[in-house]
C-alpha cells in the first residue's frame, strides 16, 4: 500500500484467483473501487513480482496499512494470501480453498459463507465470523478458522460444517441456527450461546455468563479437545427448537466452576 484511500477501498480482486497467470504490471491494472469510482490496484499499491500460472501456485503478501481495505481474499479457491497488518470487512469472504493469514485484526464478516480452505487471524476477529450472508440458511459449510485473539458476536451463524477455534474471548451469540460444524472457545463466553441450535458442537474452556434456558444438563464427560484432556459438563439444546434432526450439543469446560 503506497497511497491509502480517502474513504474505503474494495479490493475483491486481491486474491490468488484474480492474480493467477498475471505479471506485476497486469496485476497493477486490476480494478479496485473507492466509493462509486473505479481505479486500478496500481493507484494504491506498489505491485512487485509475478503471479504463478494458477491460483494454487500463487502467493500474495499484502504490506502496509490496509485497515480500510475490504474484500481481501474474496472468493479465493486456492493459493496463499498473507496480510501483514489489519484489514477491514469480508476478509476471506466466500472462500472455498487455499490459506489466508491476517497478522493483525480482521473486521466483521470475515469468512462469510466459507466453503473450504483455512483462515488464520492472529489478532482479533469482528462480528459474524464464518456466518451466513443475510437471509441465507446455508452458512459456513467447510474449512477451518483460527482466531488467536478475541472474537465479536454472531460467530458461525447458520454454520453447517467446518471448524472454528477462538483462543480468546467471545461476544454474544455463537452458532445461532447452526446445523453442523464445531466451534471451540478457549477463553470466556458471555451469553446467548447456541440459541436455536439444531445440530453442531460448541466447546467452551472458559466461563459462560448466562446459559440459554433451552439447554439441559446431561452428565460430565472426559474429552480430549485440541490435545487438552479435561472433564466437561455436557448439555444438550436448544430444546426450544423443533428438532427434526438429532439434538445439537453444547459442551463447555468446567475448570472455572471448580474454583
Amino acid at each position, binding site marked *: 500500500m503506497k497511497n491509502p484511500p480517502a474513504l474505503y477501498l474494495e479490493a475483491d480482486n486481491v486474491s490468488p484467483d484474480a492474480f493467477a497467470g498475471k505479471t506485476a504490471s497486469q496485476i497493477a491494472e486490476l480494478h479496485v473501487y473507492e466509493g462509486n469510482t473505479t481505479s486500478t490496484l496500481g493507484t494504491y499499491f506498489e505491485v512487485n513480482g509475478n503471479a504463478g500460472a494458477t491460483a494454487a501456485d500463487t502467493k500474495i503478501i499484502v504490506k502496509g496499512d490496509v485497515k480500510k481495505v475490504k474484500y481481501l481474499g474474496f472468493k479465493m479457491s486456492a493459493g496463499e494470501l498473507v496480510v501483514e497488518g489489519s484489514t477491514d470487512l469480508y476478509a476471506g469472504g466466500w472462500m472455498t480453498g487455499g490459506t489466508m493469514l491476517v497478522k493483525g485484526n480482521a473486521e*466483521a*464478516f470475515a469468512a462469510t459463507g466459507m466453503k473450504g480452505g483455512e483462515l488464520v487471524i492472529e489478532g482479533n476477529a*469482528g*462480528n*459474524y465470523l464464518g456466518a451466513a450472508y443475510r437471509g441465507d440458511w446455508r452458512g459456513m459449510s467447510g474449512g477451518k478458522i483460527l482466531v488467536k485473539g478475541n472474537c*465479536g*458476536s*454472531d460467530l458461525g451463524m447458520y454454520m453447517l460444517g467446518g471448524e472454528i477455534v477462538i483462543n480468546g474471548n467471545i*461476544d*454474544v451469540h455463537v452458532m445461532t441456527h447452526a446445523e453442523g460444524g464445531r466451534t471451540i472457545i478457549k477463553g470466556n463466553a458471555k451469553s446467548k450461546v447456541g440459541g436455536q441450535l439444531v445440530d453442531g458442537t460448541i466447546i467452551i474452556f472458559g466461563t459462560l455468563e448466562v446459559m440459554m434456558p433451552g439447554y439441559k444438563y446431561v452428565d460430565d464427560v472426559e474429552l480430549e479437545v485440541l490435545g487438552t484432556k479435561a472433564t466437561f459438563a455436557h448439555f444438550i439444546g436448544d430444546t426450544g427448537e423443533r428438532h427434526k434432526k438429532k439434538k445439537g450439543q453444547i459442551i463447555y469446560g468446567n475448570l472455572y466452576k471448580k474454583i
Partner: protein
Amino acid sequence: MGRKKYGSLNTLFHRLIRLKEEYTVATIHVNLISGRSIQQGVAIEGGKEKPAYRTAAGLIELDPSDLKKLGAWKSTNVRVTSDYGSVVVKAIETTQGPHPGLAFIPMGPWANSIVDPNTYSTGMPTFKGTPVKVDVAMKEPVLLGIELVQNLCGVK
C-alpha cells in the same frame, strides 16, 4: 404562578441542595434505556427548536429508590455519563415504574449523547441497555435540543 414566589422557592430549594451536596457524594449507576414518550411525540411535532421539546425529552426518569440513593430532589438537573458521552438532563420520578436500577430518557439528542453506538454489525445502535452514572449537577443547564447537538458537533 407569580414569578416572585417561584424565585424564592427556588433559592430555598437551591440552598438545600447545596447543603446536601456538601454532605452526600451523590453518584448512582443505572441501566439506561431510551424510547418514545407521548409528550416527546407531541413536542417533536410542535417544533424541536422550542423549549417544550427540552421539557419533554431533556429529562431522565428514575425510580424513586434510585432518586433517593442519588440524594436528589425531584426535578433536579443531573449529569448522566456513559462510556460514550455525557449530558445534563432534569431528573424526574418515573410515572411508569417501579423499575429500580433502570433509567429512561426519551428518544432524542439528550439520550443520544450517551447511548452505546455499537451495532454488533446489524446497523442498529444499542439504544436500550447502556450503563450510565448519574450525578447531581444542579448548576449546569439543560441545553435546547438543536443547541445541544450543535455544541457537541462544534457547529454554530
